[in-house]
């Protein structure tokens, strides 16, 4: 796939956000804040970082991308459609009966989805299994990227996997935590404090990189740095703004698990288009 310029990537991220708003409004249910916050990371992954082929989703040499917090899947569906995995029209079938775009992603429904996810805390363990298998097969040219939510880190399963990855020095795993500081019941530091998150992962034997997760260039650079680390798995703590790009959703935990209604979607799309204008002016 031809690499996009930074300006093109930023426009792509905005288009993905617009599609997320349209999908959620049409579905009438689903999560808003996380997918919007993750749009820059998924743009970076699908349009620059990942080695993949939208027309050959099971290409044996592809990188693996896992979305552990499956509720954020609208951003993945939108990014996949824009990358050419399927027609963008299908995005509006999200959460509908008979759709390949299930409310939470299912591997057997849609080619390109690597694992069924939704119940939290499982992605990193699956990444460990995949990374171990790659190592057994001497596949040194492939990587497993696993995107996780920060609220998800409450799950004990995550830390079981963290220990295993460090034990086996699985440097072919690159974790990305969507550090947006919110979960369903409120701010993460109120619901269940996670800080000092960087020190925690460091103490568990991981190489940690902190990055602005809404800066596409910084995310791409962080992934490149992560691939250069040997002897340790790498966790990228990506600080993002939940609801990014839509003024009334940003930072508000109430938008974690809610879709916009028609009026709100109109306002959200207006916000996004204004932002798009802003980015263009900054980069022209």
């Amino acid at each position, binding site marked *: 796939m031809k690499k996009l310029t930074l300006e093109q990537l930023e426009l792509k991220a905005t288009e993905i956000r617009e599609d997320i708003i349209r999908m959620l409004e049409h579905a009438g249910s689903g999560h808003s804040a996380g997918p919007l916050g993750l749009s820059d990371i998924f743009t970076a992954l699908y349009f620059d970082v990942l080695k993949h082929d939208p027309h050959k989703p099971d290409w044996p040499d592809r990188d693996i991308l896992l979305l552990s917090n499956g509720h954020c899947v609208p951003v993945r569906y939108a990014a996949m459609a824009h990358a050419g995995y399927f027609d963008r029209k299908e995005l509006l079938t999200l959460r509908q009966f008979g759709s390949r775009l299930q409310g939470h992603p*299912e*591997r*057997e429904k849609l080619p390109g989805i*690597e*694992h*069924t*996810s*939704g*119940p939290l*805390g*499982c992605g990193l*363990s*699956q*990444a*460990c*299994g*995949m*990374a*171990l*298998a*790659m190592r*057994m*097969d001497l596949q040194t040219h492939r990587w497993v990227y696993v995107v996780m939510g920060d609220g998800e880190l409450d799950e*004990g*399963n995550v830390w*079981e*996997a963290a*220990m*295993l990855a460090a034990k*086996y020095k699985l440097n072919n795993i690159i974790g990305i935590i969507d550090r947006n500081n919110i979960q369903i019941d409120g701010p993460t530091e109120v619901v269940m404090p996670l800080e000092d998150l960087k020190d925690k992962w460091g103490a568990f034997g991981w190489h940690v990189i902190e990055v602005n997760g809404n800066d596409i260039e910084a995310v791409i650079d962080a992934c490149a740095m992560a691939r250069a680390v040997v002897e340790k798995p790498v966790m990228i703590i990506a600080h993002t703004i939940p609801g990014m790009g839509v003024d009334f959703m940003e930072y508000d935990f109430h938008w974690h698990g809610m879709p916009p209604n028609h009026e709100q979607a109109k306002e959200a799309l207006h916000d996004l288009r204004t932002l798009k204008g802003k980015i263009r002016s900054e980069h022209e």
Partner: protein
Amino acid sequence: MNEMHLVKDVQVKGLATEPIRKGFGRGLLVAGQQNANVVAACADLTESTQMHLFRDEYPERFVEIGVAEQNLVTVGSGLAAMGKIPFVSSYAAFSPGRNWEQIRTTICLNNQPVKIIGSHAGISVGPDGATHQMLEDIALMRSLPNMVVLAPCDSIEAEKMTMAMANDPRPNYMRLAREATPVFTTPNTPLEIGKAYIFEPGNDVTIIATGTMTYQALLAAQKLFKEGIDAEVLHVPTIKPLDIETILKSVRKTRAVVTAEEAQINGGLGGAIAELLGEELPIPLQRVGVRDRFGESGKPEELMDHFGLSDKNIMLAAHIVNDKK
């Protein structure tokens, strides 16, 4: 019955005994030799679950997970996603006891052929007591779409079953027992996943048994014959999917059924047979197994007696259903 190639007289004193789990250990080693994609992972119970034979031969294909059963099965899901055939073992009380949701989502719904081995299942675990005597595993695994549920009756069958699991494309759960139990099948006894076998033909009552209770059923059948009841013993090593055809054929003939298992009858083999017969062929049924209670510490034999899991209990149940016909 000759074509089953069982040992000549199951009642002979001094019949060789061996823990069923030992057969698993040998079978895994052979499966590993036959297929390079077979890999294994264990949660800190490698010798106990008999995975050490495989680990010592193929250390590069073995993953020591530590005491982390949620991670155990989920790592298994990842290994399977890359084309491996992962066998993951622990005690049944912990796996599938602790990690049911991970099995549901990342193995069954995700449809990856992970092979889950629950050792030390049943009341015969003995002195460790109720916490470690897993009786609900059949019910837990039987409720999951895509999952195959297996319970071999002796170590020789466990060995064959392990090799069959390596060739089965579905998620599998196999339960194993800790204690040494009689070895009464032979290398020539048939075994195929999904099939039930008539270990003893008869006409009056069908005894449907699985796991360690199949041997008890054979003992009961011999004694019942002397009491005037000609019982047919159906061994059901595959609890899900049930071999409905073989079961209904036998039951249409006998019109009376006893089930026997070393597990909760609620949701267990007894539950499965009651569901099947309730819909297809309502006839007198008695279920031998644990009846909605937990176990306790003790010697295996005294516990099997106390909880009603001996040949005597099967005989009593057979008389009850035979009288109701």
